[in-house]
């Protein structure tokens, strides 16, 4: 690539545009992660509740969300769901940043559904007898979960959760369909303004790859620490 215009990426308005996109992508991922983790935990616990109704509710949530493409989720939360709100609330929402809000809601639900499954399999890997023993000692369901099962389960769940975070980071690019100015959106904008496809997508690729590798590195480091701890 003799005419790779590096200056386009390091200075000037297009640089600013791409960097703004990169930060928005990071904020989308971080915001979603903060919201999705607790939701995932709630859903996972719900699915293991003794009550059939509550467990069914958790099951319904996971299946309804996992079996619909993320793109459809985002379009639904942008074009569909807000239309059901009362007029006044709707207008207030639309004056604000409805694009980002819809994307975060869709990403949160989508990510939480997957994460809850990871948490649940982590919980199931803790022998059932532990919960039974805790209950026999007089702890309630929630206290047994909180004090006995979840601390063990969550440790096992960390690697798959990091892997879900990796998916989440890449999934933020889907927000561009509703006009959210994230990284890939800005890369496309720069491309159509400058016809510099190679440069703009090189920036996007490097950014996605860089953050993804960082997340992967985190998973590897965690594995080392846990395995190291086990050896002692």
């Amino acid at each position, binding site marked *: 690539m003799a005419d790779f215009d590096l200056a386009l990426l390091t200075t000037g308005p297009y640089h600013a545009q791409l960097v703004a996109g990169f930060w928005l992508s990071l904020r989308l991922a971080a915001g979603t992660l903060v919201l999705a983790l607790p939701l995932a935990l709630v859903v996972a616990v719900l699915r293991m509740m003794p009550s059939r109704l509550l467990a069914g509710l958790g099951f319904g949530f996971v299946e309804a969300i996992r079996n619909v493409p993320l793109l459809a989720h985002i379009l639904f939360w942008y074009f569909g769901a807000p239309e059901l709100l009362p007029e006044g609330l709707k*207008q207030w929402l639309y004056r604000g940043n409805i694009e980002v809000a819809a994307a975060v809601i869709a990403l949160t639900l989508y990510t939480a559904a997957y994460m809850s499954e990871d948490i649940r399999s982590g919980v199931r890997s803790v022998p059932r007898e532990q919960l039974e023993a805790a209950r026999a000692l007089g702890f309630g369901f929630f206290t047994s979960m909180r004090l006995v099962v979840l601390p063990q389960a969550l440790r096992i769940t960390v690697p798959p959760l990091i892997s879900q975070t990796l998916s989440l980071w890449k999934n933020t690019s889907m927000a561009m369909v509703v006009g959210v100015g994230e990284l890939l959106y800005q890369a496309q*904008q720069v491309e159509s303004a400058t016809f510099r496809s190679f440069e703009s997508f090189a920036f996007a690729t490097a950014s996605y790859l860089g953050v993804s590798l960082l997340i992967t590195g985190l998973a590897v480091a965690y594995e080392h620490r846990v395995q190291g701890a086990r050896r002692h």
Partner: protein
Amino acid sequence: MNNRIRLLAATVAAAVLPLAAQADQVADVKAKGELVCGVLGTDDPFSFVDPKSREIVGYEVDLCNAIAKKLGVKPSLKQLAVAARVPELQQGRVDILAASLTHNKEREALIDFSLSTFVTGQKVMTKKSSGIAQPSQLAGQKVLTVKGSTMEQNIKKVVPAAEIVSFDNSPQAFLALQQGKGVAYVNDETSLIDDFSKLGAAQKDYVILPASISTEHLALGLKKGETGMKTLVDGVLRDLEKSGEADKLFAKWFGPDTKMKFPSRPFKYETDKID
């Protein structure tokens, strides 16, 4: 350079140049007995293949026919690829271009243009309730359009302070306008008119602002420096305008009874200047 060769070159140039300057395309075309118009044949309704007759028809074909009639020769169409239009004209393989050709400054260096034969623009659609009458009022407002389009670039130029939200396609941007997710929707005029017609009973709540955020002039392409031909072609267009034939042509290809559904003709054959 060798002196003798230089002399030879000068002689050849002296012999050839006046010839080229004297040759008049109008006389050539009359002698040939046919006017070759370069058309696209793929751009409905400018020039396209009529599925019934299998012949190339269209607005620009009618213009070509009118010019051939004036010259007293038979028209002949040559289908061209978009990128081949200007070179084919420069090399004399077609006499004029009637090929959805945009008149722009860059091309003025290469060829001449007739009076503008079609003027289209990118415009703004908004809800009447927004109270917006001028594109400049869109500063600080959400404006909806299509990703990667020239609309996106042009609205940024006209209203730098507008907050632009772009979608993958125009139906999505139009839906977002209907839902109130932005105050305005920018697209080219033909698409806006098409979208507007789909609104049905809700049309009364919407308005397409008369001001264009950009204008695009289509014109017939003429060989550079052929003033005789340019005078003749412009004369034909002015005659069409005067006789009312131009309005009829417009109505035939773009009018309310066509799928283009232009309510009225937004331009006249009057200028070969672009801004």
